[in-house]
């Protein structure tokens, strides 16, 4: 069918994109655990992604690393490989492949909204587009993150005796939320759960400034009244949370648009902040790339495949096992 197979293996050179098990040679789009796994032989990725992998898994998490800057074509055998920013998290990339006059782009996970913590998405034209579909249903129309921040800051102002704890994935979402808070003019210290520290320092080392940060561990209950804490999503259910002052559980995720879902998971303040394209962005991007074929990797692929076919595009779901099924991890 093509030089890329449905498991995202580039057949002429036996290189895999984001393989879910250990492979000799892999291209990694970004550092989230369901895309970047340990144990590969040789890894090709952006410098930021390599730094993230090493920080999370250790220096020796792959046999060797090769850094490739955005927009720099690299010939691997007869296949030309170029990485372009995906806007998802720091270092996240789309992969463009050219071979025998055919161009394929794998978006990895992406978003098109401006985000100072990630290199901005670039649109890349192609014949075949391999796209994610984490929010591939028309109910997902993400609101402006600035509006969500305004709701958060209003709640903080209205509840001066309570700690707002924002459940965030430690890589990407946490730093995005801090950056949004700063952009909204919030200049007080932001308190971090210990699990947030390493990757946040990595972001700062790589030039993303996030303002004054403190550790929850160093603060008393009294100190935490009226403050904002960033923690992994599960932390509130941990004994750790007992040190917080009457916490308001906020969760920053694209899933939070569904109130019944927020309610069921006990989230008091759902913040719809997503690092993935929403339904409208997914469709716009597909149209703008000019692709005649769309392969859908993971997420709610049924609806997006159905929509593509309605537009007269060839479209198939790839059903790759191992990417985060409900996206909770990556979000």
């Amino acid at each position, binding site marked *: 069918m093509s030089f890329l197979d449905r498991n995202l293996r580039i057949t002429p050179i036996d290189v895999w994109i984001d393989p879910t098990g250990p492979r000799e040679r892999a291209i990694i789009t970004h550092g989230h655990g369901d895309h970047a796994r340990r144990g590969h032989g040789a890894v090709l990725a952006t410098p930021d992604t390599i730094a993230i992998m090493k920080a999370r898994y250790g220096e020796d998490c792959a046999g060797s690393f090769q850094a490739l800057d955005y927009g720099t074509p690299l010939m691997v055998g007869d296949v030309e490989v170029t990485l372009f920013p995906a806007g998802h998290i720091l270092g996240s990339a789309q992969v463009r492949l050219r071979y025998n006059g055919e161009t394929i782009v794998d978006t990895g996970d992406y978003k098109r909204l401006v985000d100072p913590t990630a290199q901005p998405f670039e649109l890349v034209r192609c014949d075949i587009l391999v796209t994610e579909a984490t929010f591939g*249903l028309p109910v997902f129309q993400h*609101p402006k993150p600035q509006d969500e921040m305004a709701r958060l800051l209003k709640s903080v102002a209205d509840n001066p005796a309570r700690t707002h704890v924002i459940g965030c994935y430690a890589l990407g979402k946490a730093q995005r939320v801090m950056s949004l808070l700063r952009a909204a003019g919030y200049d007080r210290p932001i308190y971090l759960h210990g699990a947030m520290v390493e990757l946040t320092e990595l972001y700062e080392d790589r030039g993303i400034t996030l303002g004054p940060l403190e550790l929850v561990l160093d603060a008393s209950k009294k100190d935490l009244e009226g403050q904002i804490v960033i923690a992994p999503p599960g932390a509130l*259910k941990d004994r750790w*949370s007992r040190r917080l002052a009457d916490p308001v559980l906020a969760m920053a995720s694209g899933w939070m648009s569904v*109130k019944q879902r927020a309610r069921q998971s006990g989230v008091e303040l759902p913040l719809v902040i997503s690092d993935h394209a929403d339904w409208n962005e997914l469709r716009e991007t597909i149209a703008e790339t000019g692709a005649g074929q769309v392969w859908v990797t993971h997420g709610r692929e049924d*609806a997006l495949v159905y929509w593509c076919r*309605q537009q007269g595009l060839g479209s198939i779901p790839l059903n790759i096992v191992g990417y985060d099924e409900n996206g909770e991890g990556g979000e």
Partner: protein
Amino acid sequence: MKRFAQLLELLALTPSRNRKLDALKTYFAETPDPDRGFALAILTGALTFKNVKPAVLRDVVTAEVDPHLFALSYDYVGDLGETIALIWPHHGQQEELPRLSDLIELLDTTAKGKLPALIASLLTRAAINERWALVKLATGALRIGLSARLAKTALADMSGKPVQEIEEIWHGLTIPYTELFAWLEDRGPRPDIAHEVRFHPMMLSNPIDETVDLQKLAPEDFAAEWKWDGIRVQLVLGQGPASLFSRTGDEIAAAFPDLVDNVFGEAVLDGELLVGHDFMPAPFNDLQQRLNRKIATAKHLADYPAFLRVYDMLFDGREDVRPLPWHERRQRLEAWFRRYPQTRLDLSEVLPFGDWPELAELRRRGAAEQGHEGVMLKLRTSPYVPGRPKGLWFKWKRDPNVVDAVLMYAQRGHGKRSSFYSDYTFGVWKGNELVPIGKAYFGFTDAELKQLDNWVRNHTIQSFGPVREVSKELVFEVAFDSAQVSGRHKSGVALRFPRINRIRWDKPASEAGTLEEMQVFLEAT
């Protein structure tokens, strides 16, 4: 509308009852008439539209969104109203929606043919939260976990008036409740409503303390009755259709037409709603089939006919007999039954007994042989006093059954308990295997909860989401009211009202109860 949308969202997402109450109080205090009255109607489920139905909204949306994509989305979201609010593809110049009362009037008065266009334009104009609230309001299915009782409690808290006084007149009031708010704010008299729709707050009993109370009380001062295993209701009979109120003043007549359409005379009666043929009460499980339903099906009416076992009288005809002593009310009640023969009402018998030990024996046998919940004691000279007055009515529940069961799984609780493993599933032995028989989340102190939480965390062998499976070592003495045959549990047994009586840190799991031992409880009920 914006304020109402904010309120609705807060109510949907705040787990704390007190915060919900505060939000309601603030809203009612700060929102003018008639908007707050309409909000109250929506929150208590009293508002319905003639022409705006879920199907209309669905049609409006599927005219704009591919039906297959809509179906996939609905399947994912699981709530029709939310799906509609989230999927609406047009986003206009967000201008504020009309105020609540105008909006409701608009929806109510617009001709059927023009409704789709109106709804579409409102959806386009609304910001996301208002859209959500708008759809909830229009479909009438709030699903935000708010009881009508909580809304009434908020009104009571706000005004300093007892909640019983609000419940009493509730069913005679009309939307948008301007008279009610005027009275709550001391700007007007208490609304005067028709006798037939008036709910009279009930007289409730206190549990008896066997060691203290029985020493002090004289048996001859008290009448005893069985404590029936149904639900407490009030039946109001007058000129119009009968009203049937639950303990909290909810009107439930629509679900029990077999009862309310077949009662005669004029009175306000207090009794136990039961199901069964020929006045033979069926187990509570059967009654449950008919509760929480808006209407009854023909099959339910045939299989589980409802009747009322009457034990007190509040009004004899139009005469308020509540100030009379119990024994006089009882005479009135018996005379009333002679005047109006009934097919769906009967009298709760008064149990003759000489002294407390004799009644204790009666109570024990009633529980063992007929599954009665216990006995009620009523001071013969007591008037009918709403609320829970001390020293007049007592409930003397049967001794709980107990079984030693082994903790198998623990689940995190909610709200304040969300960092604690506080919901426990326990089981008994079936041969070499433990089978779950129930789940309990109270009966222990806060200190014990901390200990249990620690124990669970240190003895986890597997986790499934919020649930932990623990090593099978810890024994609970579980108390329960009764046991029923259940197809849902692997053990085939379900416990009614289980609670942790004691934590048996000392007892080895191998000495816990067995499924064979549980059979005894099944036979007894």
